[in-house]
């Protein structure tokens, strides 16, 4: 598992990552992943991470990049 940008979120991240990888390999890849079971763990991790991103000023940089992406999710879907 890779570390989090925010050390205080590492534990939450690890719990989420482990859940995600398990869900991805055992359910999603087998066509059984109709819901993402790790949502609850993600919310916990995300609220910790968001606070850290805002504090470091990275938040706005990400938002800006998302807007100008040449491969925008909305503009280009999967074929």
């Amino acid at each position: 598992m890779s570390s989090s940008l925010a050390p205080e979120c590492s534990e939450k991240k690890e719990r989420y990552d482990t859940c995600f990888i398990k869900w991805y390999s055992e359910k999603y890849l087998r066509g059984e992943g109709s819901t993402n079971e790790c949502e609850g763990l993600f919310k916990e991790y995300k609220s910790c991470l968001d606070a850290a991103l805002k504090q470091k000023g990275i938040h706005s940089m990400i938002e800006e990049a998302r807007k100008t992406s040449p491969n925008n999710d909305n503009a280009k879907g999967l074929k």
Partner: protein
Amino acid sequence: MVKFYENSFSYDYQWPAVTLAYFLRYPNPYSKHVVSSDTLSSHLDSRTGNLHVTRLHLKRGKLPASVARFLPKIKESYILEKSIVDVKNQRLETETRNLDWEGVLSVVESQVYTPGSDSTTSEPEAATGAGKTDVRTIVRFESRLGGAARNTQSDGLAGEEVRGGWFSNWTTGSVQRSVELVGMRRMREGFGRRREGMKVVLEQLRETGFVGVIREQRQGGWERWKQVWRGEGVERMDD
């Protein structure tokens, strides 16, 4: 000034394993420069069944001198990675872009992972769990020194190729060229390392499954393992 670099490659593993390794690829013995890796969003589209994941990686590394002249303070950079997994059609699309030196050199890498064209036809291979995964990569470079940043939205990443000379009005040509050359060279070096990193994760996945990979990553046991596997060390990992 926009440049494209294209590359095709095949992994000797099936598509599901390669996509799993993609999400699990940090840390590995070739990624010491990757400081952290966080998931910003993960969304399952209920209509299409596609999985959308956005991650933020922090990479450490000194910039080469020619670029550092313009950005002396940057010792690390943020990489935004977006991935879309279409499990029904076995297609993984990824896009990674550098965030914080975009003013000088924007690098956007797009990859498409699909099952290898020969992996479905050969039955013995499928039976033994072999098979291949093709990766098509397009990297788009744009240096913006001395010129206005151009809207990249309409350029169209796939299909359309823009070679040198497309823009005739750029003024600081030699500087831009050197920045781009450095970017290109580093990108080529990076390709090799990332590929090796993916292979290490894939190999470990095959042997011990993702539980083993996670355990190894947590314990930092990659070094030990890498030496056994390759019988050699990796010297340069600082960029």
